[in-house]
């Protein structure tokens, strides 16, 4: 498939990623739950409308609109997004209201906002985009599904020049409690910046939103997005290598061409086993970066990784706190390798 140009982007995360300098100074949290640093929404959302919006709807919409502004595009030809849980807080509020009202009449606002596609719909309404609008809810593949959707749209329809792609998720009090009960989160509190140096059982919870204006035309581009590949539950590192080499080959590259691997290590020793093995024995010549200690673990964290990779490609600078192993390579070809439980995904971008 044809590569697409990342001509605009934006990210709200637990780190100072929105409108700040790059490379940013990583923020330290002494908690197993990282929450987004929220900006003033007034320049993006009418205060009259924002009174009804939940946190995720506000930061998801803001990031989508900022990515468009960053690219100088008023309204895209299509919008494609991915989310693991959608507007979880509003879904919880709605269900709580139903229970408290004994299935009687309940407030409509939480119900209206509890659907997974509320963010992409809100962006479309704000900028008057009447084109293709899809939201993918495919666990750890949600964001990669949106990327694939965008590439296919551009491939099949020459009129599709600007496609807004993004991902968003939130952690709520309720979801955090459930994740702790399921032992997906570390039992003892750990500082996020120490997470990847001290593997243990469980990870830290995170959240965030990142959007990208993908274009068929190169205009003040951050990075070139070549493509993505998903791989469900690979049983061995050999299968991963086989899939990855075929993926690189389709993009006319070999492993030695890759300069940087942005690795989805999450600090859980068991879940990181295969990635750690590949980092030590396969990606031996590459610079290895981590990111989940900065944004926390959530189903669409690979969108944060794509934001990070794009900023590195554009500026040539790497935030010090992301470096796991520095092989002093260029910042030309960047491979994002994310793992969320059994969902493995590659995203390839270049300068």
């Amino acid at each position: 498939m044809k590569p697409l140009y990342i001509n605009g982007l934006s990210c709200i995360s637990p780190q100072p990623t929105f409108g700040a300098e790059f490379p940013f100074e990583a923020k330290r949290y002494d908690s197993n739950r990282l929450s987004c640093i929220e900006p003033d929404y007034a320049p993006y959302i009418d205060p009259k409308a924002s009174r009804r919006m939940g946190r995720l709807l506000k930061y998801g919409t803001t990031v989508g609109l900022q990515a468009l502004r960053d690219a100088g595009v008023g309204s895209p030809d299509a919008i494609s997004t991915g989310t693991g849980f959608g507007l979880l807080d509003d879904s919880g509020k709605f269900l709580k209201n139903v229970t408290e009202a004994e299935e009687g009449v309940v407030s409509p606002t939480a119900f209206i906002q509890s659907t997974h596609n509320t963010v992409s719909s809100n962006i479309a309404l704000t900028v008057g985009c009447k084109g293709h609008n899809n939201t993918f809810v495919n666990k750890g593949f949600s964001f990669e599904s949106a990327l694939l959707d965008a590439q296919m749209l551009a491939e099949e329809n020459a009129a599709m020049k600007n496609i807004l792609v993004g991902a968003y998720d939130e952690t709520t009090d309720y979801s955090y409690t459930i994740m702790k009960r399921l032992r997906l989160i570390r039992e003892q509190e750990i500082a996020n910046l120490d997470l990847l140096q001290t593997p243990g059982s469980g990870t830290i919870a995170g959240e965030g939103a990142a959007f990208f204006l993908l274009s068929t035309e190169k205009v003040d581009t951050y990075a070139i997005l070549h493509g993505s590949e998903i791989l469900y539950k690979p049983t061995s590192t050999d299968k991963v290598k086989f899939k990855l080499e075929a993926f690189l080959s389709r993009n006319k590259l070999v492993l030695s061409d890759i300069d940087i691997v942005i690795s989805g290590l999450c600090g859980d020793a068991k879940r990181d086993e295969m990635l750690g093995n590949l980092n030590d024995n396969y990606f031996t010549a590459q610079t290895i970066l981590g990111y989940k200690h900065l944004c926390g673990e959530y189903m669409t964290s690979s969108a944060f990784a794509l934001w990070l990779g794009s900023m590195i490609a554009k500026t040539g600078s790497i935030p010090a706190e992301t470096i796991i192993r520095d092989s002093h390579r260029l910042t030309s070809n960047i491979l994002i390798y994310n793992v969320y439980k059994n969902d493995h995904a590659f995203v390839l971008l270049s300068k």
Partner: protein
Amino acid sequence: MKTLKVQIVEQLNLQQIKPEDIGDDQPLFVEGLALDSIDALELIVLLQQKYGIKLANPADGPQIFKTVRNIAQYITDNRPK
């Protein structure tokens, strides 16, 4: 009416408005507070949850929800004894 104004501000999450800023006869929709159709639904929920009143005829809505005074009068007239 003071309590009703507090309840309206709370139910509609009118962040920039204090209950005492809402006039008794100030229009709530279009002009005045410029509320919209979702707010109308929220007001119907408020009447049912706080006062046990079900709006019998939705067509009466625009008149009932025109001002705080009208809503208060509707509550007085229809509150279950």
